[in-house]
């Protein structure tokens, strides 16, 4: 590498290793290369200029995607991480650059997404002086990072970044932020190579597996008449999809997913009984309050999944498998806690459970599913009116993508509809902002997902509200060419809020009426092809055109203005009080 300034030093008596003098900025980039990072999303500025200057010499080794807003950058890094399973990396400058990351950091924290965020900071001697673009990003991000650290000396950089990557990806993953003062980026120091971190004495990424609890859990499962599995993103994060499938197949366990766990097993797996949650499927919600043993795996009993807690699965014994000990008993009292990485615990559990089937019990799910099909799904997928529904768009998309695409959604009705109706064959295919519900997540996350899984088709699905929150990232597509298929489901409303106002506020539509620019013209301005349709007869051909188009394409589909997403567990109600209309 031509930028490395290598000086060999030898002493007479004791040979010393040669020193390599590197700047802090070079050490940052060396660390990324050592961690096998290929793509970085970022935006430059004063306090991170030395790193960008060093990047100039690393262009052939590191791909840097210049986003249009730091929020776009971090959502792209999240999309990248979610699609690839690798750590997403984002660069931002101090002050406004760093604060623009905060929404994405919070999103990554609650959805356990591994990220390393590198922010520039003012010179160390200016810290605390209200210097230009100084913000206390460490304290701002403390509640929303798994770990954060401020580097003020160049020599700290290799070890701090090694720690950052280790913490971000190990155990329950999460976002890490490293704030580097400008002097530390500029200073030269004796670089002794990069040593990856694999142990921090105060940090136990995986709790020890306790066989006793595995045995107790197996006993409960073996005695259960109506066992029911809830699975979350833990399966995907733990890369335990196979282990999970083997487990449920051995005992014939009906299994329902959280939106974060969706795609961990194929949608049409005979034991997959659908989606949990406020807008999830009817059967898994109702039968949560009928099962005798509830087995929760890598999920955290979010209130959008449990509804009213004091009426949640009270009749059932509860087994909770989680890597994070703090999740056990946090929301739902556990009968048997199974601490550990599910990649390790699931096979141990599978070994101890009896091979059986629960045919009649599984049939209960299928019967209730028929009810939902009759009352909700049929009309959503095959509307009796001229007006298109969001569900039918997803149905056609499933057919044309062969259920093989990565679907990245924004937040709102379209998100719930996409999660309900999209079909998946492969894991890591449903990328959505689950815990935080961040509007504006969709488009940039889809861009990141495309870099994370370049060989896969990536479809970004947004509402007309959320799309306008990060619409500027069309510029990133224009400049760097990410082949993202952009689908806008335009209902001319902030649909999800409108639905609540209709149902719970007597249709007092307060500021949910949102206008849109001419998206096709906007896309055209960014050099992206596009089309708007409002007739059913154009749907399949237009979706096909979008998917076969070489490069990014924007398709706007005008859908019913006041369609609602059902079923629904109204807030404050029990899951078994789920409404079909």
């Amino acid at each position: 590498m031509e930028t490395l300034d290598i000086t060999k030093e030898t002493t007479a008596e004791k040979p010393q290793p040669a020193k390599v003098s590197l700047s802090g900025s070079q050490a940052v980039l060396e660390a990324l290369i050592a961690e096998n990072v290929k793509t970085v999303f970022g935006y430059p500025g004063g306090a991170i200029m030395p790193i960008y200057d060093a990047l100039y010499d690393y262009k052939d080794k590191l791909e840097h995607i210049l986003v249009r807003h730091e929020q776009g950058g971090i959502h792209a890094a999240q999309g990248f991480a979610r699609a690839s399973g690798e750590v997403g990396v984002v660069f931002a400058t101090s002050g406004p650059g760093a604060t623009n990351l905060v929404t994405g950091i919070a999103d990554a924290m609650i959805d356990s997404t591994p990220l390393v965020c590198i922010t520039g900071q003012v010179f160390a001697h200016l810290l605390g002086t209200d210097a230009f673009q100084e913000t206390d990003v460490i304290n701002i991000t403390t509640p929303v990072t798994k770990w954060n650290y401020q580097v003020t000396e160049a020599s700290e950089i290799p070890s701090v970044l090694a720690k950052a990557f280790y913490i971000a990806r190990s155990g329950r993953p999460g976002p890490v932020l490293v704030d580097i003062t400008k002097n530390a980026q500029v200073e030269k120091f004796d670089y002794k190579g990069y040593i990856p971190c694999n142990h921090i004495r105060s940090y136990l990424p995986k709790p020890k597996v306790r066989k006793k609890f595995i045995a107790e859990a197996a006993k409960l499962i073996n005695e259960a008449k109506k066992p029911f599995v809830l699975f979350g993103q833990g399966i995907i994060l733990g890369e335990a999809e196979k282990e999970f499938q083997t487990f449920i197949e051995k005992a014939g366990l009906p299994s329902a997913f959280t939106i974060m766990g969706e795609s961990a097993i194929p949608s049409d797996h005979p034991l997959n009984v659908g989606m949990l949650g406020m807008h999830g499927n009817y059967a898994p919600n109702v039968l949560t309050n009928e099962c005798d043993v509830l087995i929760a795996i890598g999920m955290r009993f979010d209130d959008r999944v449990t509804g009213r807690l004091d009426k949640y699965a009270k009749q059932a014994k509860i087994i909770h498998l989680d890597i994070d000990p703090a999740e056990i008993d946090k929301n739902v009292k556990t009968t048997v806690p199974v601490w550990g990485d599910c990649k390790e615990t699931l096979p141990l559990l599978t070994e101890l459970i009896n091979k059986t089937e629960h045919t009649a019990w599984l049939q209960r799910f299928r019967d209730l599913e028929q009810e939902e099909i009759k009352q909700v799904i049929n009309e959503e997928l095959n509307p009796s009116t001229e007006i298109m529904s969001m569900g039918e768009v997803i149905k056609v998309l499933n057919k044309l993508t062969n259920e093989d695409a990565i679907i990245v959604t924004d937040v709102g009705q379209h998100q719930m509809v996409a999660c309900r109706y999209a079909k998946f064959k492969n894991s890591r295919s449903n990328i959505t902002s689950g815990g935080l519900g961040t509007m504006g997540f969709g488009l940039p996350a889809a861009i990141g997902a495309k870099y994370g899984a370049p060989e896969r088709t990536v479809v970004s699905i947004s509402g007309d509200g959320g799309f306008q929150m990060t619409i500027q990232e069309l510029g990133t597509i224009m400049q760097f060419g990410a082949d993202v298929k952009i689908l806008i489901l335009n209902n001319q409303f902030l649909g999800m809020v409108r639905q609540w106002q209709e149902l719970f506020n007597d249709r007092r539509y307060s500021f949910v009426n949102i206008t849109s620019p001419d998206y096709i013209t906007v896309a055209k301005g960014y050099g992206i092809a596009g089309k708007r349709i409002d007739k059913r007869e154009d749907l399949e051909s237009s979706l096909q055109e979008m998917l076969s188009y070489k490069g990014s394409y924007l398709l706007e589909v005008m859908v019913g203005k006041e369609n609602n997403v059902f079923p629904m567990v109204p807030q404050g109600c029990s899951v078994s009080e789920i409404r079909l209309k």
Partner: protein
Amino acid sequence: MNKQEFTISVYTENQIGLLNRIAIMFSRRKINVESLNVSPTEIEGISRFTIVINEAEDVVRKLARQIEKQIEVLKVYYNTNEEVIWQELALYKVPTDVISEKAKVERLLREYGAQAVVIRSDYTVFETVGHREEIDGLLEALAPYGLIEFVRSARVAIIKDSEGFHNKLKEFENREPSEAVIENEFLNKQSEVFTM
């Protein structure tokens, strides 16, 4: 569940920023911290937080798990008052003439086991060590006699059946023994760029 006083002892790495990270775990849950002490321990580089809160055990247990999850936190213990030996220290500044003139004050000070720390012609500083009620007792008793200033420390507490932290720390250091060091591209060329 009934609220009661709990002493939370947190062993941590000595790291800037950790105080905030721990403090916000309480404020986020709207839990009032009655007392907080942070100090070095018998082991170099390890700090100990002693935090007193009034909460239900269930809340304290969950909180302890959340605190222990923080990267630089080694271990969290929580104990009821019966399970710890604890003390607070207080300093009282009183006009010296009051003590010399009023025999009652002198008796009070002796009764509460107060020790003089500084004696000057204008004021005298006493200290007492004890439980909160004892310290409060003297505070109240001295109030009518022109108490100039009063300050109380946070609680420090020793867990009755703890065997110290040395062995625990060894366990932490040993768990997950490091794998062979994976070296980066640059390091693999060590023999070429470094002379040994």
